[in-house]
C-alpha cells in the first residue's frame, strides 16, 4: 500500500462530512486582523457569535503605525485608520476573542506572533483572514488564507467547506551557497514554476536545502507559497521544529508535551507516498534573487539582467514584459545591478523575524545607508530580542530607521507608503503595481540584499560586500 503524504494525513483527520467531493473540515485555529472587519460585520448581520472564541486569535498589524506608538490607539493621527484598529478591539472584546492589540508587548504581524507564541503547532488546520497564512505550514501544519465570507463561516462554525487540493512536492537538494537565504529559494521557485504554478495545489517543500533551513527560513519559504498560487505550503516537522516549539507560551507542557510530540512525529510524509506533481531543483545553483517586474515570477539572479524583450519570442509574453518594464521604469536588457533604488524596507510577514534582522544587521554594520532605509520588526517580541542583541544600535549607527512592529510598507495602508515613481528594495512578498503605494515600484529581495541596497543605493550582490 502506498504511503500517505503529510497533507493527506492532516486533511483526513479534519474531515467532518462530505458532499459530492466538497468536504466540511474542522478548523483548529483562526487568525484575524483589522481587515477582518468585513467578516465581523457579516457575523453581526446574521446575529451570530464566534463559536469557539478560544480558537480565534486577532492581531492589530495591518493598520497600526510604526512610529509614535507611545500614545497607543489615540496616537493614530488618521481617523479612518484609527477606527480600524479600534473596531478590531471592539469586535474581539464583544466576541471574547484573544487580541494581540496595539498596546500588547507581544503585538505583531499575524504570521509572526502565533508561531512565536506556540499557537501554531504541527498537525493543525489553520485558516487565516490573509493569504500569507501559508506561512504556518512551516510547522507541518495545513494553513491557508480565506476571504471574509469564509472567515465569517469559520468564526461562526469552527468549520469550513473546501475541495481537496492536489499535491505538489518541490524538492530542493544540495546546500545553499554563501549569501543565499530562504527568500532567494522561494523567489527562485516562483521564477521557475510561475505565479500560478502552484494553483489548486498544496506544496510540500522537501530536500536537504529545505531541511537545512531554520524555522524562520521555513516560514519565509512557506509564506510565499501563495505567490506561486498555491493553496498552502508545508515543511515536515523535525527536530528543528520541536526545539523551536518547546517552552513557548501556548506550546504543550509536561505530559502533554510528550503526547504532542508522539503525534507530531507521525506527520511527515511516508516513504513511497505519491504526489500529483513533483519539481526538483538544485539549492546549490540558487543565487541571491531580485524581482524586476510587477509580479513575483518576474525575477532573476542579481548577477543577471532585466530580460531583453527583443529576445522574447512569444507575443503575449513580450507584451507582458514590456508593460512590466514600462511600469517599473526599466530598460530592456539592463544589468539588474545598475538599478538605483530610492529607499529600502526590511520587514513584513515574509522577512521580519529575528534571523532576518540579524542577516540585515550583519550587512548594515559594514557601512552606512545612502538612502532612507527602514527596519520594521515583525513583533514586539522580535523587537525586544533584537534590542537585547544590540541589532537596533547597529541599524541606527548605520543610518537605518528602527521602527515599531506591523505590516507597514508591505501592505501600505497604515500611512507608510511609497510616493508615485519611488523605487524600493523590499523584503516583502508582492511587487504588484501600487502594492507599496500608488505608482510605487518594488524590487523583492532578501534582508541581506535589502541592507546591501541601502548601503550602495542600488541593487547589489550582497556576496560582494560580505567577502570584503
Amino acid at each position, binding site marked *: 500500500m502506498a504511503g500517505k503524504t503529510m497533507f493527506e494525513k492532516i486533511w483526513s483527520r479534519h474531515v467532518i462530512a462530505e458532499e459530492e467531493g466538497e468536504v466540511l473540515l474542522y478548523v483548529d485555529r483562526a487568525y484575524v486582523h483589522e481587515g477582518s*472587519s468585513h467578516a465581523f460585520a457579516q457575523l453581526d448581520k446574521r446575529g451570530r457569535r464566534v463559536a469557539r472564541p478560544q480558537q480565534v486569535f486577532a492581531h492589530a498589524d495591518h493598520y497600526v503605525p510604526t512610529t509614535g506608538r507611545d500614545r497607543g490607539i489615540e496616537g493614530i493621527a488618521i481617523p479612518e485608520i484609527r477606527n480600524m484598529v479600534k473596531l478590531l478591539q471592539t469586535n474581539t472584546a464583544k466576541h471574547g476573542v484573544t487580541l494581540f492589540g496595539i498596546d500588547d508587548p507581544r503585538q505583531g504581524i499575524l504570521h509572526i506572533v502565533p508561531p512565536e507564541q506556540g499557537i501554531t503547532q504541527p498537525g493543525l488546520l489553520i485558516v487565516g483572514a490573509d493569504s500569507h497564512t501559508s506561512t504556518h505550514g512551516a510547522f507541518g501544519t495545513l494553513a491557508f488564507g480565506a*476571504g471574509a465570507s469564509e472567515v465569517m463561516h469559520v468564526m461562526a462554525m469552527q468549520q469550513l467547506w473546501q475541495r481537496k487540493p492536489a499535491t505538489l512536492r518541490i524538492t530542493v537538494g544540495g546546500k545553499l551557497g554563501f549569501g543565499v537565504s530562504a527568500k532567494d529559494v522561494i523567489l527562485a521557485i516562483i521564477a521557475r514554476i510561475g505565479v500560478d504554478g502552484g494553483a489548486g495545489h498544496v506544496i510540500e517543500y522537501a530536500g536537504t536545502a529545505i531541511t537545512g533551513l531554520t524555522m524562520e527560513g521555513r516560514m519565509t519559504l512557506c509564506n510565499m507559497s501563495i505567490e506561486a498560487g498555491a493553496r498552502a505550503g508545508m515543511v515536515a516537522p523535525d527536530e528543528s521544529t520541536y526545539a523551536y516549539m518547546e517552552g513557548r507560551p501556548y506550546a504543550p507542557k509536561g505530559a502533554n508535551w510528550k503526547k504532542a510530540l508522539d503525534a507530531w512525529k507521525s506527520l511527515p510524509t511516508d516513504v513511497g507516498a505519491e504526489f500529483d506533481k513533483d519539481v526538483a531543483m538544485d539549492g546549490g545553483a540558487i543565487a541571491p534573487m531580485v524581482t524586476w517586474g510587477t509580479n513575483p515570477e518576474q525575477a532573476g539572479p542579481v548577477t543577471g539582467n532585466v530580460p531583453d524583450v527583443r529576445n522574447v519570442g512569444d507575443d503575449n509574453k513580450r507584451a507582458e514584459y514590456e508593460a512590466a518594464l514600462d511600469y517599473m521604469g526599466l530598460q530592456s536588457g539592463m544589468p539588474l545591478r545598475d538599478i538605483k533604488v530610492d529607499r529600502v524596507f526590511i520587514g513584513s510577514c515574509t522577512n521580519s523575524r529575528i534571523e532576518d534582522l540579524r542577516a540585515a544587521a550583519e550587512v548594515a554594520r559594514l557601512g552606512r545607508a545612502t538612502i532612507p532605509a527602514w527596519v520594521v520588526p515583525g513583533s514586539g517580541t522580535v523587537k525586544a530580542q533584537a534590542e537585547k542583541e544590540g541589532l537596533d544600535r547597529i541599524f541606527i549607527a548605520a543610518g537605518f530607521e528602527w521602527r515599531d512592529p506591523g505590516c507597514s510598507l508591505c501592505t501600505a495602508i497604515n500611512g507608510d507608503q511609497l510616493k508615485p515613481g519611488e523605487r524600493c528594495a523590499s523584503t516583502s512578498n508582492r511587487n504588484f503595481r501600487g502594492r507599496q503605494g500608488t505608482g510605487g515600484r518594488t524590487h523583492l529581495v532578501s534582508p541581506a540584499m535589502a541592507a546591501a541596497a541601502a548601503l550602495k543605493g542600488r541593487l547589489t550582490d550582497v556576496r560582494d560586500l560580505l567577502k570584503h
Partner: protein
Amino acid sequence: MQPFTKLTGIAVPIDEPNIDTNQLCPTRFNKVPRGPKHRDILFHDRRFNADGSEKEHLLNVEPFKRSQIVVANRNWGGGSSRESAVYALYEFGIRCVIAPSFADIHSNNCAKNGLLTVVLPDAECAAIRKQLRERPGATVSVDLAAQTVTDAKGQVRRFDIHPVRKKCLLEGLDDIARTEQYQDRFEAFEAAYRKERPWLYAG
C-alpha cells in the same frame, strides 16, 4: 446570497494576464464598508488619477460602463485574499468573470458572493475577447444550469463547474445552513478530537 441562473449582458475584454486583487481593489480601500462606493473602487488606480479625474480605461467608457461580464486572461484574482475585490466587481455590476484560470481564494470569494467564475480554454477566451474588441457592447450569455457560454457570435461553449458550487449558485444556498445540517457530526467529531489532542485545550 443572490442566486445565479442565467445572464445575458455586455461583456468587457481584459487582455492583461495575472490581474491581482490589488488591481481590483487597491489596499487602501479595504476599510470601506461594502456598498455603492465599491463601484468606483474597481480597478481604481487604473481608472482614476490622484485628483479623481478619469484615466483612459475601458470601464470608464460606454458601453463598457454597463458591463456585467468580464472576459479575462489567465490567473485572474491572484494575491491578497481580500473579498473587497469581489465587492468591487459586484457593485460595478459584474456577475460573471470568464477566464482561462483563476486564483483559488478569489474564485472561492466570488462563489460565496453569487458571482460566477467560468473557466474556458485560453484560446476560447482570446477568441471571445477579440470579438468584444471588434464589436464593443456585444453581449455574451451564460447559462449556469446548462453550463454554457454563448459568445458574441452565437457560438455555444460548454464549461465545467463543481456540482456543489453549481448548486449553491443556482439556489443561492447559504453555507451556514448547509453546515448546520451536520451539527451532530460536528459535536461528535470535536469531542473525540479533544480527547485525542488534549494539549490543544489545556489552560
